């Protein structure tokens, strides 16, 4: 029963993610959409592994978590555990479920470690090379003619721009870019991206996962644009985006960029210049409630045997 429910939940999440990559209302409510994506990702992971484990641990009759505990206890004591012995399908489900779970968890940890060490290296290099600019307190400048503006997230996040950026943009445009990057810092968007980047590394062949990651990347940029436009002119942010998009001072290697790179810039510019009608408050609330329900559902089914 639990297995069927979790299986159905995993399936629903998969289909929802697939449909969700094509949704366009999300551009008008990127924050709600990001919340839904996170809920979908987490629920899919817990539901698909939970479905397998719940089926495999049925003989214990204690649900997923209780069953895992009982299995571990009986394995440790060397007993044979379940009242009825494991047959082939249950054993297969157990092995698959445990492997999938450990792959997902270890990939997430590995991605986290990777990102942390890349950031540490980047931070150390910045400390040796980047300079402060008296005109822009708190912003680090790297002397390179290319156009780059980014945030190095962490406990003490840093906003970095290249000298090329200072050449490329007007003061108002630069202010818009800095407001955008501060939004990333404030809302810790890097933490949102991490699990999706990790999942993509774990399942590189999956089109849904690839689309999901690219969609979440775009939504995060849109959320940062929305926050930035409260403090700067949206038009200046749009022109800054276009200048950046066309400033290929370093030749872009084939295949390094996502297919949607130019598309993403255009979509962001369009919604800055002509914002669509706001998504009604009730629909936003419905989205948040749906995300909360999803997030609770899988852990609930892990804990409580039906």
């Amino acid at each position: 029963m639990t297995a069927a429910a979790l299986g159905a939940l995993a399936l629903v999440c998969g289909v929802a993610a697939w449909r969700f990559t094509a949704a366009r209302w999300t551009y008008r409510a990127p924050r709600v959409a990001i919340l839904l994506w996170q809920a979908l990702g987490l629920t899919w992971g817990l539901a698909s592994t939970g479905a397998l484990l719940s089926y495999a641990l049925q003989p214990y009759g204690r649900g997923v978590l209780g069953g895992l505990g009982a299995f571990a206890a009986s394995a440790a004591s060397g007993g044979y555990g379940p009242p009825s012995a494991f047959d082939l399908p249950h054993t297969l489900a157990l092995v698959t479920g445990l492997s999938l779970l450990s792959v997902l968890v270890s990939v997430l940890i590995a991605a986290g470690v990777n990102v942390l060490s890349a950031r540490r290296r980047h931070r150390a290099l910045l400390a040796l090379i980047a300079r402060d600019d008296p005109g822009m307190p708190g912003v680090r400048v790297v002397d390179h003619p290319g156009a780059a503006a980014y945030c190095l997230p962490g406990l003490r996040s840093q906003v970095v721009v290249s000298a090329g950026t200072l050449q490329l943009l007007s003061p108002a445009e630069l202010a818009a870019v800095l407001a955008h990057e501060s939004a990333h810092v404030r809302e810790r968007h890097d933490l949102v991206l991490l699990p999706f980047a990790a999942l993509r590394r774990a399942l590189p062949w999956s089109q849904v996962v690839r689309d999901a990651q690219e969609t979440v990347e775009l939504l995060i940029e849109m959320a940062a644009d929305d926050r930035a436009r409260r403090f700067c002119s949206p038009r200046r942010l749009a022109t800054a985006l276009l200048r950046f998009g066309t400033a290929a001072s370093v030749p872009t290697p084939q295949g390094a960029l996502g297919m949607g790179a130019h598309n993403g810039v255009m979509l962001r510019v369009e919604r800055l210049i002509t914002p669509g009608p706001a998504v009604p408050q009730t629909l936003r609330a419905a989205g948040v409630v749906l995300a909360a329900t999803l997030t609770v559902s899988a852990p609930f089914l892990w804990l409580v045997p039906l």
Partner: protein
Amino acid sequence: MSALLEADTANSTTRSTTGRNGRASLNGVKGLGELERSIMDILWAQNTPLTAREVGKHIADRDLAPTTVMTVLDRLTRKGFLLRTRDGRAWRYQPEATRDAYVAELMLDALDMTGDRSAALTRFAQAVSGSEADILRQALTELEDE
């Protein structure tokens, strides 16, 4: 894990060294960062590997204890920014790469051109080329004309 512990010990020894020089422990860390920078700048400016004593002579702050210079050189070596070679009883230090190479490395990260779409940085926007760039260029002209 052991690397973490080592870094911690290095930190505390350095802090106590700077403390002996009369610096407030509050700006100890920042002062250390500044010192790492100026020592790298000195070594980048020289074409030959220098000893700790020679590096010390180039530093404007004459009150600096020789042990502090050695500690910082040691830290930079451990971080992989300096190479050291034995010369008699002293070590000679030289940069592991040129300043330009490090700038290039930063920019590759910044433009996400390592190709792994890492989540380490959040970037403002990516540049495109060819016909895609033409579309953006046209949009820019339109926005500027209005």
